[in-house]
């Protein structure tokens, strides 16, 4: 698929450096322990369903509800269940698992389009700016009635792209 040439000039792209400065962004040390929800929500909007839905109560927004969500999982670890991925009205939460394999990371994201991908589909990993940055494949597709039509898709990409890939396109 031809990329839109106007994308080069687009606003609205959060840089990884900007995101990393947020208190809730995981450290590399935490990534080594397993999957974790990464909440790319940087504005003070009255919103807290990620806190409400988290079984392990590791996501906190508190009061006022414009606080940015913080994921603090020192005692009980986030296990990447994905409930927060499903409920976020901004589709801004991803599960990143840098321990997926020796060479790959798993990026789990909300997906609300047709056709649905299938396990094994080859994909191109797409970054926040809408550019294809790497290859990969679909590891898992969770389409559960309780998710109210938000499908949860996990793609496997080369580990070095774990902090960049936040969408995908079918390859070929």
């Amino acid at each position: 698929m031809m990329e839109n040439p106007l994308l080069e000039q687009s606003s609205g792209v959060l840089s990884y450096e900007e995101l990393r400065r947020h208190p809730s962004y995981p450290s590399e040390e935490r990534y080594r322990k397993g999957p974790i929800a990464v909440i790319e929500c940087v504005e003070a909007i009255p919103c807290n369903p990620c806190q409400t839905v988290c079984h392990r109560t590791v996501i906190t927004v508190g009061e006022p509800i414009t606080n940015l969500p913080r994921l603090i999982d020192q005692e009980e670890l986030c296990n990447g269940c994905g409930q927060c991925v499903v409920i976020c009205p901004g589709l801004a939460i991803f599960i990143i698992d840098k321990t997926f394999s020796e060479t790959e990371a798993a990026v789990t994201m909300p997906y609300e389009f047709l056709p649905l991908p299938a396990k094994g589909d080859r994909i191109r990993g797409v970054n926040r700016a809408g550019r294809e940055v790497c290859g990969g494949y679909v590891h898992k597709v969770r389409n559960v009635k309780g998710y109210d039509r938000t499908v949860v898709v996990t793609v496997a990409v080369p580990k070095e792209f774990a902090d960049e890939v936040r969408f995908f396109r079918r390859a070929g």
Partner: protein
Amino acid sequence: MKTELAVIGGGPAGLCAAIEAAQRGVEVTLVDENQRAGGQLFKQIHRFFGSEEHLAGVRGLTIGEMLLEDARKYGVKVALNTVAWGLFSDRQIGVTAPDGVDTLEPQKVVVATGAIENSLSFPGWTLPNVMGAGAAQTMVNVHRVLPGQRVLIVGSGNVGLIVAYQLLQAGAEVTAVVEALPGISGYQVHASKIVRMGVPILCRHTILRALGTECVQKAEIARVDERFNPVPGSERLLDVDLICIAVGLRPLAELCHMAGVRFEYYPALGGHVPLHDSTMQTTLPGVYVAGDVSGIEEASSAMEEGRLAGIAVSVALGKVDPQAGAKDLAEAGRRLRALRLGPYGDDRHEAKEKIVQSCGQGAR
């Protein structure tokens, strides 16, 4: 036809006002000119923000169904296909229903008539397939018809950004979103999700003209400077067949105006708005407003304003004791206040505070 409470408009604000009042024993007649109530809820297929008590995470269309069910459950009389064309200073309402013209004689009125999209004038703006972004959203999400395949969106507020996403969901291609201001007007998260899908958001850009004979065939955009003048040489021709204008909404408050309610102008709320107090009563006793008609916000705040009005009417009609009513009003007020927090809410909150103050000082 006499009734205790007449609610004009069956969107989120009107439904919530009707439900709160009916629950407390008020006899409610709700009129709506459409075939189905729900206002703009049914085209909002996305999840709402807020907290659990605001139904955060629930899709707009689901909330629509919940409210219709509650209205039915509490015995709200809903008159569909019924246009309220007149509101008079004695609170009488002229309506035209399928079987003819009638007059409602309510003791109290809640006007919840919502808003209309603004338009933007540029050469070619009247061509078929130049429409409101909300209009395209209605065509796709309510009527399941896509008016075009390659879209330009003008305006990067939440409506423009959300409609871009929903047009992608319906199978269209969004060529660009243009925004005249230096920064994106809507939420970062709404911007992020369309840019990662390959939709460019071009700030400091505007539409110069729409081209076509029968309908939109191309759009010319250009960069603009700090004074919003097009920068010569920056013009680009885009191959689009649908242009969605997302430059804000303004209240549909004609009924309040004709009845003699006092208005003031607040840009933060979309322009001329009817004054109201903290219980949503206007400068005309017994006439309340709720939702976008009283200032452009969102469905969540419309619901809470509707609840305030419904509770206030119940107290005014003596259906509940003032103390219980005051407690419920305070709760609804607290929920409403929470929705106006933060940089996206401060201007609205400030404007609403001024409205309540002005209303208190006004002639009654």
